């Protein structure tokens, strides 16, 4: 049963209930002895509602809210810094995962095990020694202006020396569950207008960047179509 049908059925039940409760008493009256109780209950309900407003506005942050262009600017700055190889200038909140592998071979192929590649960029940097370093940076993502970046699990990565492959895949838990409460639903028609007055959620996922420090003596290859953008940084 769809949500709309459920609401219609519940509405009809409520309608019947309301009629049953007050239908036969045209004055909506109660016995005189019960009036004080009724007044007390109503005052209590009012107090609970007022307290709820105070709790929500004063004591609950409700998540960090920023307009869409704030996230766009943050993500552009992240891309600029990563593309320039300025890892020390990047805020730690963007770093999801960091792996170090020791590899003694001469050839290495990057294998992307992703269900969707559209939003992943690759930055490579030649490095000294035998260590391969892989960083996973995730740009800011948000729902309706509320930051959900920290809910992303890091990409998994591993080295298959026999196959001469460095693989990167989505995490086992690639599902992010969010619960959104909207306190003032009807006001949306003035803020967003028209059809947007009904429920919608604006989800913007930030870019994912794989930053690889590859030893200079390794011949490194990858499929360019696996990435939205590829940048090679001078060592």
């Amino acid at each position, binding site marked *: 049963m769809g949500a709309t049908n459920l609401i219609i059925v*519940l*509405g009809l039940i*409520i*309608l019947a209930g*309301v*009629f049953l*409760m*007050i*239908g036969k008493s*045209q*004055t*909506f*009256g*109660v016995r005189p002895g019960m009036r004080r109780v*009724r007044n007390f*209950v*109503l005052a209590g*309900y009012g107090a*609970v*509602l007022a307290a*709820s*407003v105070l*709790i*929500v*506005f004063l004591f609950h942050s*409700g*998540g960090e*809210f920023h307009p869409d262009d704030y996230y766009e600017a943050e993500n552009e700055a992240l891309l600029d810094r990563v593309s320039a190889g300025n890892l020390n200038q990047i805020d730690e909140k963007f770093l999801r995962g960091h792996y170090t592998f020791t590899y003694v071979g001469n050839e290495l192929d990057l294998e992307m095990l*992703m*269900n*969707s590649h*559209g*939003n*992943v960029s690759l930055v490579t940097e030649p490095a000294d020694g035998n260590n391969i370093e892989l960083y996973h940076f995730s740009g800011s993502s948000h*729902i*309706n*202006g*509320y930051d*959900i970046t920290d809910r992303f699990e890091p990409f998994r990565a591993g080295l298959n020396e026999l196959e001469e492959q460095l693989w990167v895949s*989505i995490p086992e838990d*690639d*599902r*992010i569950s*969010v*619960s*959104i*409460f*909207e*306190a*003032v*639903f*009807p*006001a949306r*028609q*003035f*803020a967003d207008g*028209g059809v947007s007055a009904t*429920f919608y*959620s604006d989800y913007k*996922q930030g870019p994912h960047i794989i930053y690889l420090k590859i030893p200079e003596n390794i011949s490194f290859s990858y499929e360019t179509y696996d990435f939205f953008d590829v940048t090679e940084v001078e060592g």
Partner: protein
Amino acid sequence: MSLNEISTGDVIKKQIIYKMRTYKGAFTTLMFVQLLGILFSLGGTGSFSMGGIYTVAGTQYSSMTVIIFTGIWAFVTAVLLTTKEDRKHDFVFVTNRLTSNVSNAVFLGIISVISGITAILSGFLLAVILILINSEIILHLGGGMYGVSTAAAGIFSTSLYILMAAALGYLAGSAVQLHPVMKVVIPAAFFGFLFSGWVVEAGPLFAMVFLEESIWLFLVKMLGLAALCFGLSAWMTDRLEVM
């Protein structure tokens, strides 16, 4: 013959005060209806799933169910105001059909505002319950304290929607008083409209009226429609025989 002259305004004022006292029980019903709405809202009022590298699955919560239930309550309360037994109460005062209808309309306006406020505030009660259940819930309040003005806009629009439901209830109740056959005709027309293609045809018209983006135009449209309903009701009940 009384030497005291009493103005129409005084009669209406007295009737409104009388109704506010007499129908206090309606607010008890309102409270139960809203608590029931909160209970049903705990399961979520919507959901979404968005793909990509990560799948984002969301559950939406809102006070929409509470508002719908409150609208039903207003509709029923307005219908009950038009019943013969309730109309008798107006004749406790020196009255006529006009003062009775005007006081009913004003009374329904007052309870629409009160129930609109409590409907939106009960959304915050729902939020507190959800915070206790799920600490990671995102509260979409329009961004920090800006949410206060959004809440005010929410109360404003909700009160107008509830007033519209009350006005329709009053019109339906008055029509039933005009002729008992309306008890069958109105529900039949309503469900016929709901399940026929007409509801789709009328969609743009409803959108034009109810999804108005300008808050002031919305006020004008809602008050205009409510006034039309109350006017039609007054015209119909004016034809009723004297009790």
